[in-house]
């Protein structure tokens, strides 16, 4: 069955295959990952080989073929962050959430991604959650941040 939203996105880019990367980015934004069905649909509608679409989603690191968590945690491993304690933050996140780079928590709340550089080197080490940037991080601050997310989840639940 065709995904209506995918068709809409393809039409937005006038079925132009030079906009393939952007089409797939929009698809990912819509579904939070790129579903296999969408790959096939994009290839068919743009009349390009499926292998080319698959090439794009596997070449560029921002695409995910697996469903991701509600919140995307980005841990920066740029040079400055690396030198100022990336390893300790990574280990702390592992302790807190039980996930390593590329993995998602069982409750689908968080996905952890490690990127090369967020460009906020003066605040190293840096972590971002859903585009909100946290600077000068320590393992202790990591704990506090995730505690606040857990609290948020709880209050939302009890509010319902």
């Amino acid at each position: 069955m065709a995904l209506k939203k995918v068709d809409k996105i393809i039409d937005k880019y006038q079925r132009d295959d030079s906009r393939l990367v952007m089409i797939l980015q929009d698809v990912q934004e819509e579904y939070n990952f790129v579903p296999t069905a969408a790959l096939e649909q994009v290839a068919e509608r743009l009349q390009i080989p499926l292998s080319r679409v698959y090439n794009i989603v596997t070449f560029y690191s921002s695409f995910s073929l697996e469903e991701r968590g509600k919140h995307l945690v980005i841990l920066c491993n740029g040079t400055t962050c690396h030198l100022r304690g990336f390893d300790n933050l990574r280990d702390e996140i592992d302790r807190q959430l039980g996930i390593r780079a590329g993995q998602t928590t069982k409750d689908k709340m968080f996905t952890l991604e490690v990127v090369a550089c967020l460009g906020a080197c003066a605040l190293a080490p840096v972590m971002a959650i859903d585009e909100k940037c946290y600077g000068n991080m320590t393992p202790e601050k990591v704990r506090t941040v995730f505690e606040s997310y857990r609290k948020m989840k709880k209050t939302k639940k009890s509010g319902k």
Partner: protein
Amino acid sequence: MIKSIEELAEKRSSAKSEFYPKRVRISVGMGTCGLANGAGDVFEGIRDEVQKQGLDFVVRQVGCIGFCQMEPIVDVLAPRLPRVFYHHMSPERGRELVSGISEGNFCTKWALARLDQDKLLVELDRPLDGKLNGLASVPTFEQLPFYKDQVKIALRNCGFIDPHDIEEYLAAGGYSALSKVLMEMGPEQIIDTIEKAGLRGRGGGGFVTGKKWRVCRQAPGYPKYIICNGDEGDPGAFMDRSIMESNPYVILEGMTIGAYAIGAEQGYIYVRLEYPLAVENLRSAIKQAREYGLLGESILGTGFGFDVQVSRGAGAFVCGEETALIASLAGYAGEPRTRNVYPAEKGLFGRPTVINNVETWANVPVIINKDWKWFAEIGNDKSKGTKVFSVVGKVRNTGLVEVPMGITLRRIIYDICGGILNERKFKGVQTGGPSGGCLPESVLDLPVDFDRLTEAGSIMGSGGMIVMDDRICVVEVARYFMEFLTRESCGKCTACREGLRQILEVLERITSGKGVPEDIELLEELCLYVRDNSLCGLGKTAANPVLSTLRYFRQEYMAHIEQQKCPAGVCRELTTFRIAPEKCKACGKCIKVCGVEAITGKKKVPHLISEDKCIQCGACREVCPFDAVITV
């Protein structure tokens, strides 16, 4: 919609009176660094207080003035008084500041500096009364070591104008270069000016910009394209992000001038995925420029048409390489291709294409406005103008530093950035990111320009400068870069794909204490193989971090291999931390910071690290104020 150059001039003068209003104007720096430090709350705090007190103040958001260390930064501009910058602001301090100003008291407590003449950093002069209203004790900008030696060309206007309001850019002299070009200059004359100015590509290659434009102009083929490379991938460099966030208009103006010179009608800005704020600000700038008739079918009614769109990257370092970027823009995987034909002749969609990076584009309007002679006098023999460096790492003042080419590393690191953090010993500085090299103290007096950095075994790159102290292991840094490049190699060339993997394996062996003496020779052989057999810049320069550390820090490699020791105390398998009882003052800081409860101790009794529990993370050493945590 502005329909003529005359109308633009009128618009500029009305915009100026808003830019320097007859009332107090408070601006909050809200680039990524500022926001991460809480600038959003500061902005709200100030705005709410102004509203609450019913004050007739203007509150604006601006970009970043480059002094990241001091964020959040707020500046206050009262009519006919010097501009005052405040550092480390909080919502409470913001409210206090507003209350003070409303009573005519300029707070000096958090004042960073005062700027008597805006023309140092913006194009404009501002009438002053010569009164200081109690601000005499605040240093001027020129007295601040961080800014004293800086010359702002690419970063001009950054942190002074609201990146969401094109009229602020107009007020600060924006689009006067485009007016000049459209009224007085032909395409050839523009290219001559840029070439004579000696502008070289700021993205790393250092190719002469004017030459590139000329080749493209003369190349047969239609349509032609203009690309702005905003895929600032070098970890540690963020000047392009700052320009895109703080002054997106200068990029659009530069590209429009470039388009007029080469005869292009369509431009693209390729921004890396990790910069959402840059994408947002660029898109809003493009929208406004279209509304004002500064992009579109007939710019300023001249009949010359040019438009720009933003493309987001998708997370591939190699896309900073121009042929890879072009492939990515056309909807393919970002794999570089051979450069026997340059993009200037055959680029995007097989058409002639000029591709320059953000900082290069930001230089163009200033060169046109000031003329090439002015620009060519800045810098040294072969590298003209300025370069922006992002100086980060173990240095006291971190931030963006724009200095004339040819200045020495020592002046950047010690005079401008205040030397090494916590008075530790300088060990090395990595320039040029993963494609660059690590330079030791012996070359600190090297003038920084394209050619001399290359001679020293590093590169200028896009301007990242990571300062390292004696607690950083250069072998581990080399391993880090190889890990990064192994992951980012596109895989097209065997030498790069497989060679880097082999180098990484050897380095992992060494940093985990399993290295053998023959590894050094093996590393050198592999590095040269990768360098000589790879197609694009990524592969050709990938070995630089290893080659440069082997050249300048060979004894550190030997210590890992022969003595099974990491002198910096970083490589976990080769490090044992202990507390020196004679230095320990039993303050308990290390106990608090230890994540695995490996440290024990009581008041007045020197603390102890349990070797069984310690994971060698080094957190205790970082917090110890007495240097009591030592490696054995």
